[in-house]
């Protein structure tokens, strides 16, 4: 608990960039580029509830420098977010279980590219399942050829099962 707290504090302090970092940023801006300019982007890391606000320097597809993150996941998030943003998709699927229609909550087992969210929803809407399920069961393998499975987020028993 204490460790998390201190992380959070560091994160939020860093919204105002520390003085030391300024010359470093300038140096990077002065690097000779090949037509590509160095851009400064503000990003909020959504990996964990700390919500670190990061300042990211990029050139084309390259992340040159990340600051404001309080753990190494921040840099990874910044790189993914700027080049190929990914999201975990959650939705529901109709299941006929024990003669009753129910909604089963589902999620992609890992984040998928953001552009696939809408096509994945279409595939989910076309799908209907029957029978009992256990949390973690794959309900649509390799959704939209993303390489990621859609999995059940809860177990559903047949209606006439003993509780």
């Amino acid at each position: 608990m204490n460790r998390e707290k201190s992380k959070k504090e560091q994160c939020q302090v860093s919204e105002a960039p520390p003085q030391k970092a300024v010359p470093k940023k300038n140096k990077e801006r002065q690097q000779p580029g090949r037509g590509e300019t160095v851009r400064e982007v503000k990003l909020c890391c959504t990996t964990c509830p700390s919500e670190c606000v990061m300042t990211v320097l990029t050139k084309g597809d390259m992340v040159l420098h990340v600051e404001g993150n309080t753990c190494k996941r921040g840099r990874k998030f910044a790189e993914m977010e700027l080049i190929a943003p990914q999201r975990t998709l959650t939705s529901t699927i109709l299941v006929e279980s024990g003669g009753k229609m129910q909604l089963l909550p589902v999620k992609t087992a890992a984040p998928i590219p953001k552009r696939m969210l809408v096509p994945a929803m279409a595939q989910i809407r076309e799908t209907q399942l029957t029978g009992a399920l256990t949390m973690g069961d794959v309900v649509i393998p390799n959704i939209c050829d993303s390489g990621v499975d859609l999995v059940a987020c809860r177990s559903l028993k047949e209606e006439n099962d003993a509780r």
Partner: protein
Amino acid sequence: MKKLNYDVVVIGGGPAGMAAALKAKETGATVAIIERNDELGGILNQCIHSGFGLGYFKAELTGPEYAERFINRVNDADIDVYLNTMVTALGPDCQLTAVNEDGVQAFSAGAIVLAMGCRERTRGAIKIPGSRPAGVLTAGLAQRYVNIENRKPGQRIAILGSGDIGLIMARRLTLEGMAVLGVYELMPYANGLTRNIKNCLDDFDIPLHLSTTVTRIIGHPHLEAVEVARVDENLAVIEDSREIIPCDTLLLSVGLIPENELSRQGGISLDPRTNGPLVDELLSTDQSGIFACGNVLHVHDLVDNVTREAEAAGAAAAAYALAPKADGAGSAVRLPETKAVIHLVAGENVSYTVPAILHQPLERDVKLSFRVKRPLAKAQVVVAVGGQTLYRSKQQSFKPSVMEDLTLRHDQLDSLTGPLRVMIEEVR
């Protein structure tokens, strides 16, 4: 009438109730959970989005997954679960009356944990003028329609309030093919977590209109439009900014109220700042043997914090219930009123603290939860008694949407006599 005896009875089978029950069981008590729904899990069952459990399980889970992990633990733990059972009265000396299909049940407990959660503020609570058509509903109700009951609330949706459930529903309804026209927020800042603004609104180009509110509801018998208007720094409507937004659904995400009808009826004192019970460092209410945790105590933004708080309440309830047994003949009934009390005062920029009182001597360090009144870019938490500063945090930013906490060492607190003031000092 059946008479059921337990060391600890937990009211509510959501995340708080399950965690409290498990901890009480682990401490050695006999435990029952009373839940009015037909399954455990509470509101988590309809929160199908992910982001739960990052703190507690170190894994990103959806609501149903977080719930099922706890439901499995409860099922394995020899805890008696009464589903479809509603507590109707909280009597003196930890006596409870409940009803279910089998009739009226009387429970006699050594200690009780209140874990009834909260409910949403409705249109009535914020008094929006206009007609009273169908199509105006709380965000959580829309969440239940879409995620559990397979119903569609409407086609063109406006959302009032930037609370987390409203933001989550903006994304969910968009993905399900509905048009979310915008989120309107009275305050000049968003109420939800930044991650939700980013992942639920920005990702789908849903506009967030700050300092804007719904001023009129139009249409009958079904909603046809809402009138929105910007407000100035005093939250007064700017007349020439009024605009009509045609829509068939208005979702309200305007705050949550701890559900304390039962607590009130049981004679428990409430804190007007949290609308939850007034508790001490053990999360004990002012009625002997009754403890509270989770959203019935104060509204949380992360379930992981609910779980941790509930574990503390469950352990304290079990210790209270088991103490007379251990000492034999019930001679050692704890009398907290004989202990010295220190009050915690919410000072500058702090809206409340939980706990609100401390009983000396303290056996362990005290975790304080609190919220700030307004966003502060750079500030420090200060805890002081008279002129003496007991605690000063590092500089950080604060938002009302984020529940903060800090831990005070018990050896610092035991010699104190005056009230403890918790405040946020802005660093300029």
